[in-house]
């Protein structure tokens, strides 16, 4: 029971969240913060960090308490644990970076209902050891933050001609107003999903071609 998992397994659980089972590009989870707060790269980073804190913290705690939580009330227990970490994140952001907290507004509190977090508790943390659960949470959080940053950076570059507040194109940039508005989030997310779908399909095509050549 207490044998530590081998490092290879640990690494695999971490790495799958970044690319192979990326929460946004593959599982299409957590769309609400994805669309709502990615109109600039800095907001995306703040949201990614807050989500990572909540996800890692609650995965750790849920995995630690997994033998004490009764099956019948597990979901509400997870929610209470998640809500605790969200409150901590909320107050910390408010104290440390009030301007970012103001930008993100209600979406910090809404991390509670991010189905990515609850999904990881139910699917992974509640049935694996603490080390594996934390490795999984770090991987998923990194994947989520990566996706947020992809979307936030493209939308900020096109929508205001800047990245992290630095002007990229000079004064005379013509902003694509739509990109900082909600429809721009949907369009850009669609384009990014299309791109990742294309990459996946190409990989599968190559693999089948290789196996066909090997067979013939």
């Amino acid at each position, binding site marked *: 029971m207490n044998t530590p998992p081998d490092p290879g397994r640990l690494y695999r659980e971490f790495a799958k969240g970044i690319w192979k089972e990326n929460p946004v590009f593959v599982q299409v989870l957590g769309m609400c913060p994805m669309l709502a707060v990615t109109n600039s790269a800095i907001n995306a980073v703040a949201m990614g960090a807050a989500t990572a804190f909540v996800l890692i913290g609650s995965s750790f705690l849920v995995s630690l308490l997994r033998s004490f939580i009764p099956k019948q009330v597990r979901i509400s227990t997870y929610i209470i644990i998640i809500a605790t970490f969200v409150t901590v994140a909320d107050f910390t952001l408010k104290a440390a970076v009030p301007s970012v907290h103001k930008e993100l507004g209600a979406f910090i509190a809404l991390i509670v209902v991010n189905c990515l977090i609850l999904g990881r508790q139910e699917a992974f943390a509640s049935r694996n050891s603490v080390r594996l659960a934390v490795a999984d949470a770090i991987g998923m959080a990194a994947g989520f933050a990566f996706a947020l940053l992809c979307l936030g950076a493209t939308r900020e570059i096109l929508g205001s*001609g800047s990245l992290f507040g630095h002007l990229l*194109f*000079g004064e*005379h*940039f*013509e902003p*694509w*107003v*739509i*990109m900082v*508005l909600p*429809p721009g989030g949907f*369009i850009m997310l*669609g384009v990014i999903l*299309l791109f990742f779908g294309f990459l996946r399909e190409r990989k599968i095509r190559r693999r089948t071609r290789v196996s066909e050549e090997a067979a013939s």
Partner: protein
Amino acid sequence: MTRRDPRLLLQSAPFLRRGITTPRLMVDVLIALVPVVLAAVYFFGLSAILVIVAATAGAALTEWVFGPDRRRGGSLTDGSTILTGVLLGLCLPPGIALWMAFLGGAVGVGLGKLVFGGLGQNIFNPALVGRAFLQAAFPTAITTWTQQGAITELLTIRPSNFALPFMQAPAPAADAVDAISAATPLGLMKFQNIPTGVEQLLLGNTAGSLGETCAIVIIICGVILAIRRTFDWRIPVSILGTVAVFSTIVWLFDRTEYPSPWLMLCSGGLLFGAVYMATDPVTSPITPRGAWIFGLGIGLLVVLIRIWGGLPEGVMYAILLMNAATPLIERIAQPRAFGRGRAVA
């Protein structure tokens, strides 16, 4: 036994064909657009050609790169992409930067058509998707109308066409052509309550998008296309009829506040949209009853948006909204194959 009887020809229905193919249809419409393009060049100079070419290039390049055909560019030969590009170019203002027109063509074909699976699968008219994207992305540039010219200014090119990609147009010099901005007849009516004369509207001597100003040319081309049965005549007729009736009712309530039915019919993109955009065979209903309902919906929406909406013009949104409703319209307008009475779905 294996030899076939030479006198017996086995064939399945249909036996009557009109010999119309997709490329024929598209080329028909493209030919009917030539007078509209010439009118645009007459009033707006060489800028018109540049904008249309840029939009078409964006559309064609996107189709070439992402098109469904295995053979590179194979789907370009059906002409529909070129038509989309030309239509998009004709509904842009003359002073728009060429990179925006190019982007509009690319977005229209990419997001309006190819993501749905190519020609015949799209829900929305691709040219209007491109324009709606530009309207949402660059609301200022797409509503900056420059003064129309005359034959003497045929070779004028507006410097704002040549803004660098992603950049704003440089501020125009005081004597440049694009220094004089103008309002469209609908904008004049809505914001300053100045009506424009009908003869001006018919001839097209007003500010506006490239292809929409010259009413008489569009009407003639539309009648020719309808006689050739290139499109369903019911759609433009029901759109224009609804607008005429509805705007007359509104106008009779207050003749100074609301535009007259003539102004409504001949101004803005209504004629262009009714003839060239709403009749897109992919995104409009094919049943006769469906065509009437479709046109009725567009007409009502146009008048609603123009009179009570925030924008002076609403043809684009009206057509796009009814495009979305087309599958539902088809369902309720299904003709019954045999017998009478209500069809049982």
